[in-house]
């Protein structure tokens, strides 16, 4: 609950020096959850592990917010052939910089969570997909993985049990779209990252046509907490509809930007003003992009009483996304910000679907025209028409992610857009 945040002790990335070292992690209760499961496999059979995680309602921290345990339950019965877990550390949504904290400061909690996930879904191979720009973080995680192998937590017959699992890192090479789960699988298979048509869903046909589950890094780091303390305990952290600890990445115009860990459902103004030290330079808040660039921006006056959880943000007219909050002060030119976001999606569209490939370009160009003072009022209608032509008409959600910020900004900051468009009309007249 947001009232006791000041006394909150981080659970995903605790303030323990050298926690990335396996001995320190073990000394602080690390790998206890895995041992608990492996020492009583009757009580903790795969189905029971899935149930516990499902009950805990860990909402996927990669942006979609889907119940992780429920996702696990979609995996079919094992048929003796390979099945895979792909851990998504692509972390490319602008405004998002949280999973790197886990790689740097607490990699073993993620590794432990991934091993438990593999056990629950009866998977023997785990791939950790990390964006290529995070090379130093890939190296940090690799070190932790090597330690886990050396200490018998990965590899054959883990801790003397009959359970075996391998974990490999796979480095991307610069492509936002590879954070989309089916594109991630294409990239893992050594191809251009073109998203796949769904269905079939990854649980039916994923990597190399075999059942696959894709989970975000932070999501998996929550799993040992649930096994150690129980689903009920986990549900008591934050709102039960969106429970657990969350890594909030706060950037933009605040005094103390950074990644903070607090319960889900933190009051947004508390996060901006108290946690992150308020808007820089004593300025007023203009807008907030709550969960990465694709989540619709909210005006300052729309933030009263809104908290960082899916329900509250949906009511306010946005989304939780990755909890990467970008704070914008009163001097921000919203047209410019939205143009830069559109430029990003134009650059990152994989080009597979026409509405997205062409639409992202036209959004960007039209916004640029307005930004440069050459806009006309009808450009706003054109922008909205382009958005309409993109949303829901493509294989993956990149087109939607590109359209939403534009659509909602025109709606919520219409004055600013009109002012720039009208200026030209007067100048010509």
């Amino acid at each position, binding site marked *: 609950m947001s009232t006791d945040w000041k006394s909150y002790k981080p659970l995903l990335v605790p*303030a323990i020096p050298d926690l990335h070292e396996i001995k320190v992690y073990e000394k602080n209760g690390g790998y206890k959850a895995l041992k608990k499961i492996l020492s009583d496999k009757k009580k903790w059979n795969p189905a029971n592990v899935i149930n516990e995680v499902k009950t805990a309602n860990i909402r996927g921290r990669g942006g979609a917010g889907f119940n992780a345990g429920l996702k696990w339950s979609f995996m079919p019965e094992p048929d003796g052939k390979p099945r895979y877990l792909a851990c998504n550390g692509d972390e490319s949504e602008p*405004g998002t*910089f949280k999973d790197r904290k886990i790689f740097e400061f607490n990699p073993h909690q993620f590794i432990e969570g991934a091993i438990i996930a593999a056990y629950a879904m009866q998977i023997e191979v785990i791939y950790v997909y990390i964006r*290529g720009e995070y090379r*130093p973080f890939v190296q940090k995680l690799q070190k932790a993985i090597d330690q886990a192998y050396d200490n018998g937590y990965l590899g054959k017959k883990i801790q003397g049990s009959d359970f075996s699992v391998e974990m490999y890192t*796979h480095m991307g*090479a610069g*492509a936002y779209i590879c954070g989309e789960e089916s594109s991630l699988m294409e990239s893992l298979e050594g191809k251009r990252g073109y998203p796949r048509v769904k269905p079939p869903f990854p649980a039916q046909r994923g990597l190399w046509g075999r059942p696959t589950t894709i989970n975000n890094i932070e999501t998996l780091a929550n799993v040992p907490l649930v096994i150690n303390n129980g689903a009920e305990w986990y549900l008591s952290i934050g709102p039960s509809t969106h429970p657990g600890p969350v890594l909030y990445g706060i*950037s933009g115009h605040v005094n103390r930007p950074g990644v903070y860990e607090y319960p889900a459902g933190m009051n947004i103004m508390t996060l901006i003003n108290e946690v992150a030290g308020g808007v820089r330079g004593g300025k007023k808040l203009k807008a907030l992009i709550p969960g990465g660039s694709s989540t619709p921006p909210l005006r300052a006056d729309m933030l009263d009483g809104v908290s960082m959880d899916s329900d509250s943000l949906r009511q306010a007219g946005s989304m939780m996304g990755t909890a990467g909050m970008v704070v914008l002060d009163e001097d921000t030119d919203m047209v410019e*910000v939205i143009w830069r976001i559109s430029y990003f999606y134009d650059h990152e569209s994989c080009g597979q679907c026409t509405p997205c490939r062409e639409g992202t370009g036209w959004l960007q160009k039209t916004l640029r025209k307005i930004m440069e003072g050459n806009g006309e009022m009808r450009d706003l209608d054109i922008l909205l028409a382009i958005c309409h032509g993109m949303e829901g008409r493509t294989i993956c959600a990149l087109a939607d992610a590109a359209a939403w910020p534009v659509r909602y900004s025109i709606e919520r900051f219409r004055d600013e857009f009109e002012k720039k468009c009208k200026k030209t009309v007067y100048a010509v007249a």
Partner: protein
Amino acid sequence: MAETYTFDAKDLAEIKKLIEKYPEKQAAVLPVLWYAQDKFGHSDPSVQKLVSETLDVPEAHIRGVVSFYTQYYEKPIGRNVLDVCTCLSCHVSGGYDMLHYLEERLGIKAGETTPDGEFSLQSVECLGACGYAPMLQVTNDKFVNHLTREKIDKLLEDLRAGKEPEFESNPMPQHQKES
């Protein structure tokens, strides 16, 4: 004239280990391209050919992969590649100012390489260091955060002297308060 590149026995042993991570050889395309680029400095068509032959995957496929991902250099590039983030959080925190300062200092535009081949400059999309903006990445490796003109001057001087930047850790502010 395109150069001919080769992998030696040690390289091939390393590449074999990369291939063994996957059920199919083709899956090793990205890691082997990374390996090749680390060795040769770029992934131009002759490097692509080498990777194609090593993995027994069509050259056209390798070309497709190289051109899809931004971090593979399709042709030889400066010894130091400065990727300045100008996306969202960096954009609203002076990312373009830093890019323009670098353009001024190096006498080149984004997308170009200095005549001595020492520096290439690029304006890039979000690198995942939003709280430490403005920032840049040096040749697909270390992040240099909280950029200022002074910090850029120092960085250029260091890189010219062959000194790579150190890894900058950005602890969680909560931790600093508690300890």
